[in-house]
């Protein structure tokens, strides 16, 4: 106990643990642990044959953190910014460093705008969004939704009821607005 010098005795000795658990102690020596010490200078280990990599062509204006000196030589090209969400994203990158909450809050806001824009855009395509199939909610019936949750002392059951509201509310709200709009246009 902490009130006296000695550490509490363990239930099993090292020999007992070695006999019971396959591999017990094989990495006991820190020298056998690959991330000890944390930093190991060896620029040849990785197999790279450059000091600074050749630059990937920048095919569209690539947003970047203002904490970077320049655009990194290699970068992802998935989903270039577009629409209003793209404007917000570019503004967040151009104006605020990673150290500012505004940077991240704007990016989160852009994510929500992106969702609305993309959903609306999907209705003008041959592949409209479908909240039933895209949420995978039908697996509740095929994969024991009720039995997996109840009578199992799960802490997350207390807040999982919020999830359908988060997912469904924008669809309900959008439906109501669309209905009112159609009704108003039809009434003219």
């Amino acid at each position, binding site marked *: *106990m*902490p009130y006296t010098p000695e*550490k*509490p005795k*363990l239930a099993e000795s*090292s020999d007992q*643990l070695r006999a019971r658990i*396959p*591999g*017990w*102690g*094989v*990495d*006991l020596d820190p020298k056998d*642990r*690959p*991330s000890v010490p944390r930093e*190991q*200078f*060896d*620029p040849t280990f*990785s*197999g*790279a044959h450059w000091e*600074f990599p*050749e630059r990937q062509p920048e095919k569209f204006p*690539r*947003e970047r953190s203002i*904490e*970077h000196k320049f655009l990194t030589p*290699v*970068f*992802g090209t*998935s*989903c270039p910014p577009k629409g209003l969400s793209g404007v917000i*994203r570019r503004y967040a*990158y151009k104006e605020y460093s*990673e150290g500012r*909450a505004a940077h*991240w809050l704007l*990016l989160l806001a852009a*994510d929500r705008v992106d*969702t609305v824009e993309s959903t609306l855009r999907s209705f003008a395509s041959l592949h409209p*969004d*479908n909240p039933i*199939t*895209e*949420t*995978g909610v*039908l*697996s*509740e019936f095929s*994969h*024991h939704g009720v039995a*997996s949750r109840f009578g199992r*002392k*799960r*802490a997350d059951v207390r807040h999982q009821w*919020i999830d359908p509201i988060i*997912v469904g509310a924008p669809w309900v709200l959008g439906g109501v607005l669309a209905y009112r709009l159609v009704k108003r246009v039809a009434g003219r």
Partner: protein
Amino acid sequence: MRAMVYRGPYRVRVEEKDRPVIEHPNDAIVRVTRAAICGSDLHLYHGMMPDTRVGSTFGHEFIGVVDEVGSSVRNLKPGDRVMVPFNVFCGTCFFCARGLYANCHNVNPNATAVGGIYGYSHTTGGYDGGQSEFVRVPFADVGPSLIPDWMDEDDAVLLTDATATGYFGAQLGDIVEGDVVVVFGAGPVGLIAAKSAWLMGAGRVIVIDHLEYRLEKARTFAHAETYNFTEYDDIIVHMKKITDHLGADVAIDAVGAEADGNFLQHVTTTKLKLQGGSPIALNWAIDSVRKGGTISVMGAYGPMFSAIKFGDAMNKGLTLRMNQCPVKRQWPRLFEHVKNGYLKPSDIVTHRIPLEHIAEGYHIFSAKLDNCIKPIIIPNPV
């Protein structure tokens, strides 16, 4: 090609998408044979990670066959079976030269605080991931390794993140012989961390979670002593009681941003997005470890602030260690452990899901249905 596509919080689907192309001379295009859904993918799925764009493809745990290589690639050729670390890294920047591959400075223009990760939002570089038929792999001479002939494919895919991260987490605990190690979270990373703690000579390994089926796995797979925190008024008091009021020597947070156990903290984080991550597991780690102890943080958190009990961490003189795992650095030793039978990552795989059913896969994993621990995605099931 067919690929998983994010459509907004809690919504994903499979779409036809352009096959990736060589964009840099050291790129490779890999045909994916197996991918996994990681617990940290759920942070994206739930809309918690800033700059997660609609249309992006997730997946940072994958293996496959090289389909095409760029003009400067020397170490790989089409037809090679490869496993790809979740880190995108150049190998020669200041950080890579010191073995910190997860902190590469040459691959993520969107942020300097985090390196590049496949399929993990633009905050980690804007790369599409491996939950698809094909994926672009930058720095093909540096990241991927050939899959050894003797290695099982499920073991190989889990070595690209979960296994390496759990093993790395135990290393950051600086475990010495006889240490009491408590692991928060019995998901894939927590299970591997618990098992790895024994390899490093732990004298007692305790795992805390609220999902009974995962605690059962912690007992059988990781030989751990387990406690369900929902059965105790205050899990911290219980931790003190079972350690003779000293506390654990080492605590490993293998939960991260969506930790449960405090309604207010969880809801303000995962539902209202007011914090970068729910700090419950990390705060429990701070409270349950002994003075002068070490905390290893393997759980992923968003880049925004979280309500961490930093005062207690300071007053207790704790050492807090953390990083994204530099996966490739772990592999030589991990390959030995898998070959010797000390680690069998595929034992934690519970579901194999065709890519076409990805939406169900995410829901099952997110809602913890059907005793799900680790789902594997098969792009082209035979």
